[in-house]
């Protein structure tokens, strides 16, 4: 494997006695889309902020493009494109000027900036809105503009912190399409999300974070195979009815059972689960479906809410 573009070893960040990031290690290769998946408060955004040099690292080692965030912040930031969680567009400036002013922070020469901005506005379907106030844009357009803004310096690494939170399905799919296109162009991407479908759509590889730790790492398919199994059986029946059925399944090698309120999830149950579903023969009571990232996530992080 080549030298990783981003590498963390034993990375730590504490706020008082609270360890937001508790000794995590990972490596991001050139050209891949790397995801941080986890519930709110897992430490995803804190990790991202340390990579972006807006938050000093609290311990361990971190290198971005071979550079040290504590000493070479400006050089690192020059290579990054940032799509922050909250819209930080400049409300005092119209769409095009938002990008022009932003390009100036990177010291992009004016003519080059103009060229890139025209191209970006076209790419993100914002050309018609170029002179509009930012406040007039819809949520989806604002997100697209933030992504367009993150490209003004032609970044090597694009950092996306929950890029589609709060968007409607159409807007999300449009954003995903643009991100896939950027990935195809070879831009390395770092993505945090708590949407499982977003992670499986976009990520080549991801880590699942929980309470400042990395619980699992891999590509989405392997994670699903390893933690959820190809087939997941959902039983929707009362405690009394399901107890004898669960008895049949326990003890089979690898099988895992999660009971959540009125639904039981049976992971990695294989043939026994298929037979059980066939015998019940009522999809309202027993439902077989492919495993997904959400299963992985729930199995690893438990079902309790964090906040």
């Amino acid at each position: 494997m080549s030298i990783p573009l981003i590498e963390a070893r034993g990375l730590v960040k504490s706020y008082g006695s609270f360890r937001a990031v508790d000794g995590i290690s990972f490596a991001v290769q050139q050209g891949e889309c790397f995801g941080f998946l986890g519930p709110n408060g897992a430490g995803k955004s804190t990790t991202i902020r340390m990579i972006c040099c807006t938050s000093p690292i609290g311990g361990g080692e971190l290198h971005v493009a071979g550079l040290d965030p504590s000493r070479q912040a400006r050089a690192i930031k020059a290579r990054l494109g940032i799509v922050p969680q909250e819209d930080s567009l400049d409300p005092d400036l119209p769409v095009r000027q938002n990008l022009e002013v932003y390009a100036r922070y990177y010291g992009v020469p004016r003519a080059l900036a103009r060229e890139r901005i025209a191209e970006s506005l076209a790419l993100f379907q914002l050309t018609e809105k170029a002179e509009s106030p930012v406040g007039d844009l819809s949520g989806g357009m604002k997100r697209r503009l933030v992504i367009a803004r993150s490209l003004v310096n032609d970044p090597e690494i694009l950092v996306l912190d929950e890029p589609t939170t709060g968007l409607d399905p159409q807007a999300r799919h449009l954003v995903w399409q643009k991100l896939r296109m950027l990935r195809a162009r070879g831009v390395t991407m770092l993505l945090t999300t708590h949407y499982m479908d977003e992670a499986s759509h976009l990520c080549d590889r991801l880590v699942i974070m929980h309470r400042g730790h990395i619980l699992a790492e891999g590509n989405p398919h392997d994670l699903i195979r390893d933690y959820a199994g190809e087939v997941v059986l959902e039983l929707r029946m009362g405690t009394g009815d399901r107890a004898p059925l669960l008895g049949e399944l326990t003890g089979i090698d690898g099988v895992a059972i999660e009971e959540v309120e009125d639904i039981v999830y049976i992971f990695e149950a294989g043939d026994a689960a298929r037979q059980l579903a066939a015998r019940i023969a009522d999809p309202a009571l027993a439902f077989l479906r492919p495993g997904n990232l959400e299963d992985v996530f729930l199995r690893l992080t438990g079902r309790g809410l964090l906040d």
Partner: protein
Amino acid sequence: MTAIATRPDLSIGSYRVWQRNRDVTFRLWRTEFIGVVVEPFIVILALGLGLGQFVELSSGEEYVAFLTPGLLAMFPMFAAVFECAWGSYVRLEMQHTNDAIVATPVSVDDVITGEILWGTTRSMVNAVYILLVAILLNPWLHMVESPWALFIIPLSLVPGVLFSAISICFASLARAMSQFSYFFNLIINPMFWFGGAFFPIGELPGWAQTLAWFVPLTHVVELYRGFITGEFAWSMLGDLAWVVVTALVFYWLALAGMRRRMVQ
């Protein structure tokens, strides 16, 4: 306390932030400049001509002429304060403008320095405008007695930095917009009334004169008065030193305060 001991991390980025604020001001120029343009006339008419008829100064000076250095110190002070207290807080906390900027190669110190430079610029533009108004009205009101008054233009840089930096310091501490009423009512407003702009400090009781010495605006007014009248005193060097040193101290505190707030 490492935030205070750290050397400023500055670059061309400070100028980029200044440019951003300039561009926004030009976009919104109608609303931004109406007060600036109109207010001095209102004050000169109301205080100079209205109230002035009833005021007899022991120096024998016309009241409207006495007011000139005060106006030159006070309005630019407000320009800096509005830009760097409310303006900075809005950009920091409500618009997240600063968060977006520090994600680029521009540092927190650059952002704060750029903000202070822009507050200073507006403050200086304001001083130039008031001086212009005073010179235009000179044939009738005799507001400016000496050509030395032109030196106030470069000098206004120093109070511009001072009042901008004080405002940023407060913005770095404020937890809500409403808290600016403390800043305005306990710091800016008393400074406005007791800074020697409206009456000679020398007429106050001793303890009040001592108190007035600690008010930054007092020294700015004294300094400007010398240049407006062309009557120089050694004490003006002390006034200048007072303002320069205080400006540097508050600039340092503004950087430390904002680092503490923005870097976590």
